[in-house]
């Protein structure tokens, strides 16, 4: 197991690294300020969504709170035509792809089975079956390989997912074919109530090594380190070097979803400890140290967050319910006489109420 890559410590102090620094030397203050703003906006989307859930506008929300650096930095490292296959907790990654949070909320409101157009944003819609998407990404990467393209498939999943057979199988297939896929594990320490120690007594980042996949553990609350390791993994994949596994060590500061009560299983001291490792304040300190005006930075980010939050709230509140008869839509791509028959029956049934 290599050490955990960290380029910005918990107090916002830069840790120089001859190995990793060259990978982020283009990240100037403006770029970092952008990452800062992204993270602030993301945290605000979460807060807004949680409020909307309390108000009954959406049924459920899985917050990213605490994992902002892991998602924003890795998402921003992607090329537009790379393709992402994530779980249900990738609001931040989706945000970096340009996906409107209203679309994400549409699903949690129960108004659609999935949200955005995957081909428009080069990101598959959310996956609820734990780990299933890692195989889809691997298959997509085989397609990239066949096409002779230098795109990369990237899959996001959690520490809990590491136990599902599908994830091991995905790594096995990726290794066998040298597929251009990055396995990005957000180890947020929990699978609902289960601590990561239940999934493994040894570091999760050891596993891919056993499958023959280069593995790196990174401080998931450090935008710089996440950017560096992600860029390296993408570069390797583009150049035909095959898959890489990244474990971003972070913490789920919120509940599993708004339906969860983490006080039943979580140590408050641990929560407090991780609160001090906050990815946003850490970056803010760095930016201030390098001369930026903190309050101004904060004000600008807050203004952006306000704009996004207002649009988000309005979009959710004004969201129409889907049409009843749409339940029959798109079950098949081609005509299906039996389902048409059921559809017509049900339409007649509904008409009975109208008359």
């Amino acid at each position: 197991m290599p050490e955990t890559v960290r380029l910005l410590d918990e107090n916002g102090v830069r840790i120089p690294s001859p190995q990793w620094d060259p990978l982020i030397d283009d990240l100037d203050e403006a770029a970092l300020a952008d990452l800062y703003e992204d993270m602030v906006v993301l945290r605000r989307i979460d807060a807004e969504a949680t409020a909307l859930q309390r108000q009954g506008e959406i049924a459920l929300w899985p917050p990213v709170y605490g994992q902002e650096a892991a998602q924003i930095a890795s998402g921003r490292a992607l090329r537009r035509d790379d393709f992402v296959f994530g779980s249900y907790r990738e609001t931040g990654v989706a945000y970096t792809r340009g996906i409107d949070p209203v679309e994400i909320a549409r699903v949690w409101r129960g108004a659609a089975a999935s949200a955005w157009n995957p081909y428009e944003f080069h990101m598959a819609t959310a996956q609820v079956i734990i780990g299933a998407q890692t195989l889809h990404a691997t298959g997509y990467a085989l397609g990239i390989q066949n096409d002779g393209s230098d795109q990369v498939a990237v899959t996001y999943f959690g520490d809990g997912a590491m136990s599902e057979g599908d994830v091991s199988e995905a790594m096995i297939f990726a290794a066998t074919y040298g597929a251009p896929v990055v396995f990005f594990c957000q180890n947020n320490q929990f699978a609902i109530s289960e601590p990561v120690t239940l999934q493994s007594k040894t570091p999760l980042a050891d596993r891919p090594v056993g499958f023959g996949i280069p593995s790196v553990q990174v401080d998931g609350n450090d935008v710089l380190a996440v950017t560096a390791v992600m860029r390296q993994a993408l570069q390797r994949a583009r150049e035909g070097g095959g898959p890489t596994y990244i474990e971003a060590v972070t913490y789920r500061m919120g509940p599993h979803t708004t339906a969860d009560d983490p006080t039943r299983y979580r140590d408050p001291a641990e929560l407090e400890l991780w609160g001090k490792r906050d990815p946003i304040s850490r970056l803010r300190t760095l930016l201030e140290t390098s001369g930026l005006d903190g309050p101004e930075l904060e004000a600008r980010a807050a203004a952006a967050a306000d704009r996004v939050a207002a649009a988000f709230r309005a979009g959710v509140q004004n969201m129409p319910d889907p049409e009843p008869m749409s339940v029959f839509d798109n079950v098949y791509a081609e005509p299906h006489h039996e389902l048409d028959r059921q559809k017509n029956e049900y339409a007649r049934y509904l008409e009975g109420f109208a008359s």
Partner: protein
Amino acid sequence: MTTQTVTMGKALNLGLHRALADDDKVVLMGEDIGRLGGVYRITDGLQAEFGQRRVMDTPLAESAILGTAIGLAYRGYRPVVEIQFDGFVYPAFDQIVSQVAKMHARTRGLVKLPITIRIPVGGGIGSAEHHSESPEAYFAHTAGLRVVSVSNPQDACTMIRQAIASDDPVVFFEPKRRYHVKGEVDDALDLAAAPPLGAARVARPGTDVTLVTFGGLVQTALDAAAAAEDEGTSIEVIDLRSLSPVDYDTVAASVRSTGRVVIAHEGPREVGIAAEVAQTITERCFHFLEAAPVRVTGHDIPYPPSKLEKHHLPDLDRMLDGVDRVLGRTRVSA
């Protein structure tokens, strides 16, 4: 007899508690069932009382949960496995279909697998994709399994104890939408005196139409029967309780007297439970049937987003529409 008024969720908890207390070979396994007590709190407090070896939080892998339960059963344990939601049972399908269901026959009865597979089931709870599925038919089609579905607190408490006591593997469906509904429960009922696991129950007697259903829809059927009575139609409601085997004696006796049967369930229609019940009843009661059996089921679609689930799930009106159809009436709705 000590009865108490509890929710169906609590009734299951009481039944599990009693099973753990009665037989130290009983072990509970699943995701989040220990410290958290399960996402529906069905196992609440059990790990604290019986310890981590009897109530095991497992790593996140359904195939392994079933596969290791098989090994435990091989050694004489009686594992009770929780699948967190209906839609998450499929990763374990291979172990269930190729191992759990076949082991007893394969080993000529030498290896028994008294495994209970608890599955919170069905919709009507406004939840996300894969959280409202009705996979009963997959298991009822699988020889070697018993499949039951509970509809009320007393059955939940008694039947979970019977399922655990059974030497056969039992797939045990718990309709989520009924978890919070209360009823009188005696958790110390003598299992031998209680109706057997495989027996159906006439939930409401009637004379014009037999309405067969199970699990989460039993209450809906009772409500429909009450509504129909006001309109002068007498519906006999049968709660199947056991989906495999079905207690056809009870169903056939009813249909022989009513001549008409409606079968309702949430799951998809095509090759579903209702097809089996209807055809078997047709085979056994053909000359008593005044009309073709009618199915009132979920559509043959993936479970829709929750805002539309009411357009998928059979409700009181759709059941009454089915009753009207089996009676040859064209329903004029309210």
